[in-house]
């Protein structure tokens, strides 16, 4: 037993990744660990819920809303890059499609936010799958180039299709979310958006956690590990890749609709290549394939530039420096590769539940 434990420790991080609740199918699911993780999650959600009540600074809340939108994007991209292992450099395109779908639907058809949100999600999922088609026959670096290309095409089309998208000026006068008929309008205050984003992030995490421990989640991981072996185990790579792009797109669409409704305006320069790279950096920084990691990465990379504002012109320099240092010391990301961590967690699980295997 002792020898065994040492063997597994070799690749595992030194800290205990208790924050992440990982559903294990089967009879060896350790209740104590799950309960513990559940309590941690509860505390984090409660703390997140209380922040706007304690901190009345509108600027702080506004930064957190942006961080939340990026969190959604990081979660969505993590499905494609982290789980399915397809390097996507054009994720901002799906974000853009989500934003413009809501903007157009709202301006021309006066569709309210709560409906437009889902229309955006489905249209971005649809475009995600279209974007996946050229990528299906390719692998590795070539997929990255194709997604980079399609991402740019979408932005350039938005920039030049003046009659529909308003060209570089974008679209103005998008409705903010509202409740009821006469009722409460979100307006330009940050708090309601904060709670909207919080709710959506929780919803997305629940959905992704469920998928992660399902047949589809396993198929994605297998695809990432070894596509050829995966197809010889009965996994249809086309189905697996399309569903990853679809779900990634769906989440980007949700983020896009929230972004458009909050800004009240959309323009192509919000969906630059830099956004794709930034979201990718969040996923990588947090730890590829790790849901909590993607969120943490998004939070860090959204807050860091704001926290560094005191350094004025040197801000971006320090930001870059921080990332280089980070990658030098933890190349597997803040929360590490999910599997190292699981390995460790399984040991914990076994020890705590005292399960005899």
């Amino acid at each position, binding site marked *: 037993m002792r020898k065994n434990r040492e063997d597994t420790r070799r690749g595992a991080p030194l800290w205990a990744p208790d924050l992440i609740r990982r559903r294990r199918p089967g009879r060896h699911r350790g209740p104590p660990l799950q309960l513990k993780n559940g309590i941690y999650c509860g505390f984090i959600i409660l703390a997140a819920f209380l922040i706007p009540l304690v901190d009345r600074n509108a600027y702080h809340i506004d930064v957190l809303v942006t961080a939340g939108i990026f969190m959604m994007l990081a979660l969505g991209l993590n499905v494609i890059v982290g789980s399915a292992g397809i390097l996507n450099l054009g994720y901002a395109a799906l974000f853009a499609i989500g934003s413009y779908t809501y903007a157009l639907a709202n301006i021309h058809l006066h569709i309210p936010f709560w409906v437009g949100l889902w229309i955006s999600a489905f249209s971005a999922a649809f475009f995600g799958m279209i974007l996946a088609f050229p990528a299906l026959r390719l692998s590795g670096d070539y997929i990255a180039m194709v997604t980079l290309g399609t991402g740019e095409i979408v932005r350039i089309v938005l920039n030049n299709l003046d009659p529909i998208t308003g060209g570089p000026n974008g679209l103005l006068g998008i409705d903010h979310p509202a409740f009821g008929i006469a009722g409460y309008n979100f307006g330009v205050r940050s708090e309601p958006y904060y709670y909207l984003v919080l709710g959506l992030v929780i919803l997305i995490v629940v959905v992704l956690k469920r998928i992660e421990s399902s047949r589809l989640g*396993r198929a994605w991981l297998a695809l990432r590990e070894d596509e050829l072996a995966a197809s010889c185990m009965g996994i*249809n790579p086309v189905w697996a890749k399309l569903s990853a792009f679809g779900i990634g797109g769906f989440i980007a669409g949700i983020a896009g609709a929230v972004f458009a409704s909050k800004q009240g305006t959309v323009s192509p320069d919000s969906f630059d290549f830099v956004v794709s790279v930034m979201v990718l950096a969040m996923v990588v920084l947090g730890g590829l394939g790790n849901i909590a990691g993607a969120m943490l990465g998004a939070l860090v990379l959204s807050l860091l530039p704001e926290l560094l504002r005191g350094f004025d012109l040197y801000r971006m320099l320090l930001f870059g420096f921080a990332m280089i240092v980070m990658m030098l010391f933890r190349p597997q990301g803040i929360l590490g590769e999910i599997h190292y961590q699981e390995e460790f967690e399984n040991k914990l699980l076994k020890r705590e539940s005292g399960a005899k295997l």
Partner: protein
Amino acid sequence: MKPNTLSQSSLLRVENVTKRFGGVTAVGNVTFSVELGQIVGLIGPNGAGKTTLFNCVTGLGLPEEGNIYFGDSETLLNRLDPDQIVAAGVARTFQTIRLFKHMSVLENVMVGAHSKTRSGILGALLRPRWVLVEEKKLVSRAHQLLHFFGLDHKSYEIARNLSYGHQRKLEIARALASQPKLLLLDEPAAGMNPKEKEELLDLIRTIRKSGVTILLIEHDMKVIMPISDHVVVLDYGKKIAEGKPKDIQRNPEVIEAYLGTGTYPSHA
């Protein structure tokens, strides 16, 4: 070479299959069949085209000529994708171990059963009863399989951390999870010590008893001869002999392919 008699009870029929890579004919006009319930050994020196033939059968390479039929319904395998072939009932292992290294041992086996499970995106999200039942059955079946291979105590280990012999066994367990009718083993005993090889032979015999037909690539005559009912010998992509292990051992052509002619080149 005497003409091949293809009986109708055969599970797998390989007919005149040719596979070329550019100018090289890796498999040339090979014909043989695997009878239901048999263990068939596919042998030959390095580069004889054994693995290429396996790839043709499992859909990883489309043969230029010839047909591969499977089962009673005469499914034409060379028109199907790898995942459809698994669903039809052909599973395989790889010569170089290709496990999902960073997934747990249990998850590896569960992925193996992919074609036998149905739940999709909606199933994962809504988790209706049938999905939960399916998942539960899947887990318990995976544990059973691992138990059979003596790997149950490693269920939650990451596949990469297993010893070489265990990884080989896990490959077979993963392939069996798809409940195949035909199991293709590509050098399962490679790199094992004599004791492990002996164990493996017992396992393969038990698998056959459970109703799985086995086609086996192997270098080691000590492995292939005691276990096979029928042996097919390839050399330079051509079938040079076929028959009972005893006869194959005495076949001069096979001995020549493996050991050479024994004549020293005397053109000095």
